């Protein structure tokens, strides 16, 4: 156990706690619609906070722990692959953009599912969306909790259960009492920590390795493949690497935790600023964090477990107090993902299921109590699951990322820009996307040398278009109503 490492980490946790607590003040004072305030921060995010909350929510344990670990093994080819994520910095906000912001206000949408409800007017679309969000994101969230607790465990020497408890407590309190605004504000702090931690570690590692030319030379002497785009064994084909442009690049448009942020900003000026800041921050973190993994190899050769590369190299090249500061970065990445997922799952239960279908006439006071209650309950549930993660949960988590993308991308994007899209198209697109993804992922991984998410995205697109056209005549009324809302008539 290393006290000098633990103190900065604890200070970080306390800081996050305070920011979340302060943010919850505005929730209590606000007179606006409670649901919009709690789950969307009253649509008042500015550019900087918006950019940070998008980046931090998206950048999870994999960017800070898993990714650098693989880069350590594969070399520069994996950094190339990771750079396919720069596109997320601008693509999501540019594609959804102003139309999504305007339409979600017209529909009074607080969640992604609300948006789909407004656009397609279909109970089945809403329920499918809500159920996919609850199942997939709940398991994704539990996996991140396990990651967070393991990280605390390995850094501090506390037992896994104590570490998990500490982690759960620090996230739960601010999410439950502060809602979206607390999540977004803490995300901003966490994003800054992630950015700063990456910078400090990169500089320290280049100095420790004797400069970039020396490091590259050593890598190439060990295995020349490490400095090619093809990976240590030469197994990273251009097709495979390029297919990550879909998984972690453009299809991120379909991830609900990212999409919901595209309805939370205040003005088009905020969006413009967020485009620039977001691109800079996401590119900087992805490039440098994965480079750190590669550069760590000559300095600390022979690390067997990829997930340990980042903590070990930080402890190796930095004085321990500074290592503590830097290791707050992966902590921040995990927390900022987990808090957003928790709130999103809660909003899906409260707004999409309860208020929509179980009790539409619930009093505001009841909705309020329920929101706090469900969020806490979900938190406790995840905690219990993470104590001893069931196999089903681990299995589901494998599908979470790609599954959500394949489910949501076309109903959202085509719903925005294609007038003829209708509820039958959306529903079949969701079904085809999620089913083909699970089948392909399970039985035919990397079809045609591509990541398993690519085909389901193409198939769900085809399903959307074909079924929408085929059922055109059955939905004439909905079509007219939709054109009315969009103001095209």
């Amino acid at each position, binding site marked *: 156990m290393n006290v000098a490492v633990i103190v900065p980490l604890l200070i970080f946790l306390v800081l996050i706690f305070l920011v979340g607590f302060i943010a919850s003040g505005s929730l209590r004072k606000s007179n606006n619609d409670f649901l919009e305030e709690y789950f969307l921060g009253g649509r008042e995010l500015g550019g900087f906070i918006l950019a940070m909350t998008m980046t931090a929510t998206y950048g999870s344990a994999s960017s800070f722990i898993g990714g650098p670990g693989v880069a350590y093994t594969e070399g520069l080819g994996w950094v190339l692959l990771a750079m396919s994520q720069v596109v997320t910095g601008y693509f999501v906000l540019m594609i959804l953009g102003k139309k999504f912001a305007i339409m979600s206000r017209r529909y009074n949408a607080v969640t992604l599912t609300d948006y789909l409800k407004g656009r397609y007017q279909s109970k089945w679309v809403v329920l499918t969306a809500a159920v996919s969000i609850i199942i997939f994101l709940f398991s994704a969230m539990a996996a991140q909790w396990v990651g967070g607790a393991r990280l605390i465990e390995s850094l501090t020497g506390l037992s896994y259960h104590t570490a998990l408890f500490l982690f759960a407590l620090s996230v739960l309190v601010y999410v439950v009492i502060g809602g979206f605004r607390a999540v977004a504000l803490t995300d901003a702090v966490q994003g800054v920590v992630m950015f700063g931690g990456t910078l400090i570690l990169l500089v320290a590692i280049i100095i420790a390795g004797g400069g970039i030319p020396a490091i590259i030379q050593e890598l190439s002497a060990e295995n020349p493949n490490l400095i090619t785009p093809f990976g240590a064994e030469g197994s990273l084909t251009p097709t495979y690497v390029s297919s990550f442009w879909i998984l972690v690049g453009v299809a991120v448009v379909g991830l609900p935790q990212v999409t919901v942020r595209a309805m939370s900003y205040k003005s*088009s000026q905020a969006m413009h600023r967020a485009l620039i800041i977001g691109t800079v921050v996401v590119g*900087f973190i992805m490039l440098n964090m994965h480079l750190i993994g590669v550069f760590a190899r000559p300095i600390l050769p022979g690390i067997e477990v990829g997930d340990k590369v980042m903590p070990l190299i930080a402890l190796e090249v930095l004085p321990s107090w500074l290592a503590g500061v830097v290791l707050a970065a992966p902590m921040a990445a995990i927390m900022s993902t987990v808090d957003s997922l928790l709130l999103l799952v809660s909003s899906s239960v409260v707004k999409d299921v309860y208020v929509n279908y179980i009790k539409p006439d619930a009093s505001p006071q009841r909705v309020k109590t329920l929101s706090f209650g469900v969020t806490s309950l979900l938190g406790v549930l995840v905690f219990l699951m993470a104590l001893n993660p069931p196999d089903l949960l681990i299995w589901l988590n494998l599908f979470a990322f790609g599954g959500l993308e394949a489910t949501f991308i076309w109903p959202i994007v085509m719903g925005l820009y294609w007038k003829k899209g209708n509820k039958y198209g959306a529903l079949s697109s969701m079904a085809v996307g999620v089913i083909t993804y699970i089948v392909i992922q399970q039985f035919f991984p990397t079809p045609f040398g591509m990541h398993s998410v690519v085909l389901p995205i193409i198939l769900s697109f085809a399903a959307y278009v074909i079924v929408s056209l085929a059922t055109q005549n059955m939905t004439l009324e909905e079509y007219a109503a939709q054109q009315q809302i969009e103001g095209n008539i």
Partner: protein
Amino acid sequence: MSGKNKDYRFTIANREALIGITLAVINFVWWYGFAYGLGSKPPENYHFVLGLPAWFFYSCVVGFILIVALVIVVVKFFFVDVPFEEEEGRGNGS
């Protein structure tokens, strides 16, 4: 179809979405072209820039800086500010 009442903001939004797609295509072509164009030869023939292999330097480092520059230019000169609030008539929570 779209009469003269069509919301002018949606015309702007459509154009900006197309700009987003164009940027992503440029980003991909640059990234792919330099990585596999310069990186496919045997490592002993590599050129190096600032210590990094040239393919990596141009594809990932310069490519990233280029995209940031393009995003800044596009946002400053082609993106248009529009109000999100409805003028009147339509019910709106905030």
